[in-house]
């Protein structure tokens, strides 16, 4: 431990204290508020099971929204990622596409949802559009990075045959980056389910609409039913993605398991 390290640590701690005061983050409020957790927990245990059917339907709507958003988003993202990859395009193509993609990522999906509620009105459609926007920005970025990381050797070997660029994409770029894409789709679907669950906060459909309303009226027991359904759904989807990942991704990346 030298003095310089101590000074840096001291400065960081001082920074946290000063900034906490600035944003009014007072730990005493937290301690005073602790008993509220007890009240909330007690009310949450008074689960209103009659709402389960409603919650399941709301969850189904959420899953459908996330599914549409993911599929359409990926379908739009894929050609954009091909245009944004530096190893496939000239600068005047990939620079504007990248700028566009960066712009779509600037807003979290909840802000897109607010925007689309204004445009198409309240309801799930606004939520779907928000999910699409976020998915496009996210998947296209990860995918063009994966495309740029595609091994140069096959590109070189197949390019030397004198094939067209589309053929190069179809036979080298897509197969070589497919496992990345699958992995990213699984991740974004999982993420979109969780995102769609809160888009209801701004009136863009899905299960979040119920959760926010029950919480507003302090009906924690009712909100709990919906939150429980979200939790279980996310766990199931997580479990399914792990299965898919194991089956299609881990194997091909290790390249070891020989099936006869």
């Amino acid at each position, binding site marked *: 431990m030298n003095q310089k390290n101590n000074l840096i640590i001291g400065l960081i701690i001082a920074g946290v204290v000063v900034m906490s005061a600035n944003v009014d983050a007072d730990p005493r409020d937290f301690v005073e508020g602790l008993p509220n957790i007890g009240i909330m927990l007690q009310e949450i245990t008074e689960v209103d099971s009659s709402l389960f059917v409603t919650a399941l339907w709301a969850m189904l709507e959420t899953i459908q929204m996330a599914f549409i958003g993911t599929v359409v988003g990926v379908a739009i993202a894929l050609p954009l990622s091909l245009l944004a990859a530096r190893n496939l395009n000239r600068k005047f193509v990939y620079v504007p596409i990248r700028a566009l993609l960066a712009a779509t990522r600037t807003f979290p999906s909840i802000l897109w949802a607010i925007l689309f509620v204004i445009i198409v009105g309240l309801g799930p459609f606004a939520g779907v559009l928000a999910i699409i926007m976020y998915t496009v920005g996210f998947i296209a970025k990860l995918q063009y990075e994966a495309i740029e990381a595609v091994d140069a050797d096959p590109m070189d070997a197949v390019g*030397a*045959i004198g094939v067209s660029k589309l053929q190069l994409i179809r036979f080298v770029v897509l197969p070589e980056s497919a496992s990345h894409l699958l992995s990213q789709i699984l991740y974004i679907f999982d993420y979109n389910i969780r995102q769609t669950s809160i888009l209801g906060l701004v009136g863009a459909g899905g299960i979040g609409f119920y959760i926010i309303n029950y919480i507003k009226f302090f009906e924690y027991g009712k909100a709990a039913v919906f939150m429980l359904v979200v939790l279980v759904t996310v766990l199931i989807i997580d479990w399914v993605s792990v299965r898919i990942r194991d089956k299609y991704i881990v194997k091909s990346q290790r390249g070891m398991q020989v099936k006869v």
Partner: protein
Amino acid sequence: MQEQKGSSSPSISTLSIVQMNDISASYDSKSYVLKDIRMSIHRGSNYAIVGQSGSGKSTLLRLINGMMNPSKGKIMVDYQTPSTSDKKFKSLMHKIGYIPQNLGLIKNSTVLENVLIGALPRVSGFNSFFKKFSDVEIDNAKKIIKQVGLEGKAERKVYMLSGGEKRRVAIARALVQKPEIILADEIVSELDHVTAREIMDVLAEAQATMNLTAIMVHHDLQLALEYADRVAVIKEGEKILEIGVEGDKIVDFQSGNYTQREILEMFSGEPEE
């Protein structure tokens, strides 16, 4: 018909499929990878280029298929100057099978899919997008897969194959191009002696039956002399000699300053890849 032109060069160029006149190449402006290379490779021959790592051998192959341009000198491949942006040369590229050192296979695709890549120049953009190949092409690809010794493995994914089998896939991909020239960059140097010779036999047989020109880069002079008609030895970017085997004699085609023993010594005692 007895009339001849002044020099003998026209008759040489009709024989040779690759002609290099004082070629130099560099990746930066500071140093040359290749210096003043003169080379004449005859149509239908089995030509080997031997040299140590970093001697510029791979660059030579990339000059032939136009993946790189020389900084000085003139190169002619089948009477054309290699250039990937030239439409006319592109149709020649379809006929040049290139097997880089790392083979450049698509790991997650099957053997058949990899091999069919060689047929892509003959497939329309629309059909290739849906990976639709004609029955003729598929039959031909399967025939070549059998020819290189991979019968029954057409549907296997490439990542499941052994090193020797992967090389056979790369050879098959090149052969499906119906090539006039095959360029192979040290494709057997990482294999054991037996497997290396098996692979070389596959190539030699294809070269003889399909009447193509094989230009192969090797690390191992012994192996090169075993299979090639002519061997060019490259050292630090310069061709120091060109030799050939006639019977059991090694014939020097360029007045090099090295004896046969010196040449072999140059390559012995360096078994690393």
